[in-house]
């Protein structure tokens, strides 16, 4: 039956970006890349959160945010934030020619949301560029 193994070269590139975000932004305790249908692609998580389970929900959360955005006539959702007593989870799509991936960043609750947004967006853009390059090289015809 069909499954979707992501190419190893892409997986390694994504692992690097996830580790980079985790390492360079103080307060970030995790980063997860998942497919839009909820499969784990890459992750670094410091706390007990299970990346597989987070991935299963991340794509749905992003899609639900977009659905609600359309419903209330405010246009396309840019990101979804879960602000909890113990931390922040920021979820957004990876901007690429094909909507394949979402990225989630988990941070301590004293983390500046603006910085978190900026850095997550930067990581998502880098991942998107890497994905687009792969698509351009491998998706001819």
């Amino acid at each position, binding site marked *: 039956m*069909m499954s*979707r193994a992501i190419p190893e070269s892409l997986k390694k590139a994504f692992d690097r970006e996830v580790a980079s975000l985790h390492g360079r932004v103080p307060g970030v305790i995790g980063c997860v890349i998942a497919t839009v*249908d*909820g499969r784990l692609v890459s992750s670094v998580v410091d706390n007990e959160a299970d990346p597989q*389970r987070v991935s299963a929900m991340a794509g*749905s959360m992003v899609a639900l945010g977009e659905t609600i955005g359309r419903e209330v006539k405010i246009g*396309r959702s840019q990101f979804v934030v879960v602000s909890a007593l113990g931390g922040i989870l920021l979820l957004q799509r990876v901007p690429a020619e094909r909507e394949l991936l979402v990225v989630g960043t988990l941070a301590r609750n004293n983390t500046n949301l603006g910085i978190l947004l900026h850095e997550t967006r930067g990581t998502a853009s880098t991942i998107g560029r890497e994905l687009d390059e792969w*698509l351009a090289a491998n998706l001819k015809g």
Partner: protein
Amino acid sequence: MSREIKLVFAGSMGAGKTTAIRSISEIEPILTDVANTDRAEFDKTDTTVALDYGELTLGIGEKLRLYGTPGQVRFDFMWSIMAEGALGVVVLIDNSRPDPIADLLKYLGAFRELADAGAAIVAVGRMDTHPRPTLDDFATALDQLGLLVPVMPADVRRRQDVLDVLEVLFQQIEATEEHAEAVDDWLGFVRAAAPRGGS
């Protein structure tokens, strides 16, 4: 290499989607249950509002990712979200409801793409207390839609019943895939994905 397969459980409120996933999941399921304020629709205390999620590893190195949808039609926006990337759908029918055939048409219609691809199965519950409509009645309704979808009875509280349903679904999918053109799986996913801003 291990493979992961996404399956969706659909059906009316109270049909047993959460129960089915709980019956076979090897992890503690993710549930999004809240208090049910619509006791006239179905008399139970809680209802799913976003999704249920569980996992089951098969002996052949495949991991099933099990998604349960909210049953009420007002949550139909979640059905299409859940269907994304799914290999198959199990439509659960509660035969004690007023019009189970209408439920069949509604929920199978919502996953018509999977049904057309031979990746759907219908499992009918509470047939012991509510024998009608019969399995033949369901088969006739499916035939009129031009759909080749297996129908079988199931008590989703019983793990073996749910596993039997999945086994028949996989047989159906494999039989269909044997005729499909072999494609690289990742490439297939990429090609099927929506273009930028398209969803």
